[in-house]
């Protein structure tokens, strides 16, 4: 298998992990077993996994967003972190204090997002900036993704501009799924193509069909490579559609049929299966085996999380400061 082939196989496995895990979360949500909301990345796995798989955990940093289950998996987040959080286990990375899509492990280079859209852009820039000061930036990349809606935030603008001024190896993937919650792009921006913004920031600009695994792996992988080699910030606009509601509470009925049946309405997993099979990168049988294996992994992660204790308010350490005041004079 060529390096490219290996890469595609790994991206695809992460896509599958994302999809299967999220399908399970969706069922659990419908069964009333989930704590909090469920926001899925269905239809965005090729983009997300291509980004995550292009990064090296322990070296790079990655601030995933709400539709990045596949990318998290590709970056190396264990499935159990996810199931623990959704099922409210106190063993989860957030210990019940924060939830679901907010989970993160900053110590492994994967910060925990806050809800406020765009806010992770300058944060990732700061991680890279610190690496430069520490002398460890060489060959590193920091990545984050945002939606079409998040491009309207001041945080996105200030963060990307700052990263450009500092010439940091930041890769920002705009998952342009045509809607922000129910709001269509026509009410979000007026430019012809979001990628036109790149020039105005002085960063690299790339477009890709987000439903096409081969294209995503190549364009997103290429953007990561450019950043890694010192090309400065790169912005990738991936065009696609969210194959579900904004969250599982939403049926997404505001998405017109013309969009659903349009060019971005296709399922990137189906496209990927075809592409891998046709390209001789993985056989259909092989992929079916992966699917079964992952389904079992997911079942195990769910089962384990379900057995674990919930957070206990009486044992909770109710403090938001790491310093214990009063501290004594030296």
């Amino acid at each position: 298998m060529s390096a490219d082939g290996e890469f595609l196989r790994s991206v695809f496995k992460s896509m599958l992990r994302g999809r299967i895990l999220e399908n399970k979360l969706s069922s659990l949500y419908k069964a009333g077993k989930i704590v909090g909301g469920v926001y899925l990345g269905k239809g965005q796995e090729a983009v997300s996994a291509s980004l995550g798989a292009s990064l090296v955990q322990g070296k790079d940093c990655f601030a995933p967003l709400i539709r990045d289950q596949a990318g998290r998996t590709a970056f190396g987040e264990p499935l159990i972190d996810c199931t623990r959080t959704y099922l409210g286990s106190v063993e989860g990375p957030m210990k019940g204090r924060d939830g679901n899509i907010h989970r993160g492990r900053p110590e492994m280079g994967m910060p925990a997002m806050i809800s406020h859209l765009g806010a992770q852009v300058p944060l990732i820039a700061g991680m890279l900036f610190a690496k430069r000061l520490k002398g460890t930036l060489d060959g590193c990349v920091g990545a984050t993704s945002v939606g079409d809606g998040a491009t309207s935030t001041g945080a996105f603008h200030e963060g990307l501009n700052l990263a450009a001024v500092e010439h940091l190896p930041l890769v920002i993937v705009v998952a342009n799924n045509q809607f922000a919650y129910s709001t269509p792009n026509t009410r979000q921006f007026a430019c012809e193509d979001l990628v036109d913004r790149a020039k105005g920031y002085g960063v690299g600009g790339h477009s890709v069909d987000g439903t096409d695994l081969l294209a995503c792996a190549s364009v997103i992988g290429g953007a990561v490579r450019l950043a890694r080699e010192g090309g400065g910030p790169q912005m990738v606009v991936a065009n696609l559609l969210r194959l579900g509601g904004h969250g599982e509470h939403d049926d997404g009925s505001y998405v017109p049929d013309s969009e659903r049946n349009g060019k971005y309405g296709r399922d990137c997993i189906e496209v990927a299966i075809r592409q891998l099979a046709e390209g001789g990168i993985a056989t259909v049988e092989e992929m079916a085996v992966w699917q079964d294996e992952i389904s079992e992994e997911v079942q195990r992660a769910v089962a384990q999380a379900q057995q674990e204790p919930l957070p206990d308010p009486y044992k909770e350490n109710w403090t938001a400061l790491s310093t214990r005041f009063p501290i004594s004079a030296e």
Partner: protein
Amino acid sequence: MSVTYIDAIREAQETLLREDPRVFLYGQDISAFGGAFKATKGLADAFPNRVFDCPISEDAMIGLAVGAAIEGMRPIIEMQFADFSSIAFNQIVNQAATHFYRTGMPIPITVRLPSGGTPGSGPFHSQSMEGIYAQYPGLVVVTPATVSDAYHMLIDSVKLDDPVLYCEHKFLYRWLKSKKINGEHLPIGKARIARPGKHATVVTYSAMVHEAVRAADRLQADGWEIEVVDLRSVKPLDLDTVLASVARTGRLLALGEAFPWGGVTAEVVAKVTEEGFHLLDAPPQRLNARDTPVPYHPKLWAAHRPTPESICEALRKLLSF
């Protein structure tokens, strides 16, 4: 037939749109979709070109509202969650709040802040920011606790010439129901006795009014008669009504759902002790949420905010002096 708290908010906006051509609604997903909480359901259809979806740009949303107000309009801005108003903070506290003092021209905007905790919502969809905004001169901050107040106070907020932060509690949206919306109502700036009593006064607002009443009901069994004052607006704060109640009971518990440092409860205690020290038979007490972000897990959340149990405990302590 019954009306929920969120229905009242929707109805108020419908009334305002119908009766005042200066009113328009601007917010994320509030047009055809009807808003994240359906507070504007159907209004875009009924009032074409008066209800607008906008980009995810809270700062610009308030900037636009202030500009529109300068031109004589009365915009209502929906923040999807109160917590996201942190992005609009500058426009609210520096542009809108200072405008009248600086120029003599008032800015009649109303910013709807879906506030307060609900189970599973976590640190960024649960905040109570009334005590933040109330610190700024030039802002009015209202916190309706009843279905009728949700309706009338929204109408009155839009009628006021000053910028109003209308803090609507998400927990009350569908849970709080009423047979109908009362015709009579108090003006903004007047508090209300939510439950009469004589042994102690709980001063509170918004969702905590209901928790306080629950706690009071429980203590009734032990013979205690607890008065609950619903502030309705935290700025202005109706000290007269509060002092009159404390004069009757001699005891004060200030109760709120916000973080424990400062905020409404501190202002209430400070005002009462400054002006009504001689009325107090016991040290005034405060009960707020804990000093951490609002936790996401319902088990932690329920212990983070005051509960009927913790309110009873605070009241028992207060009554024991």
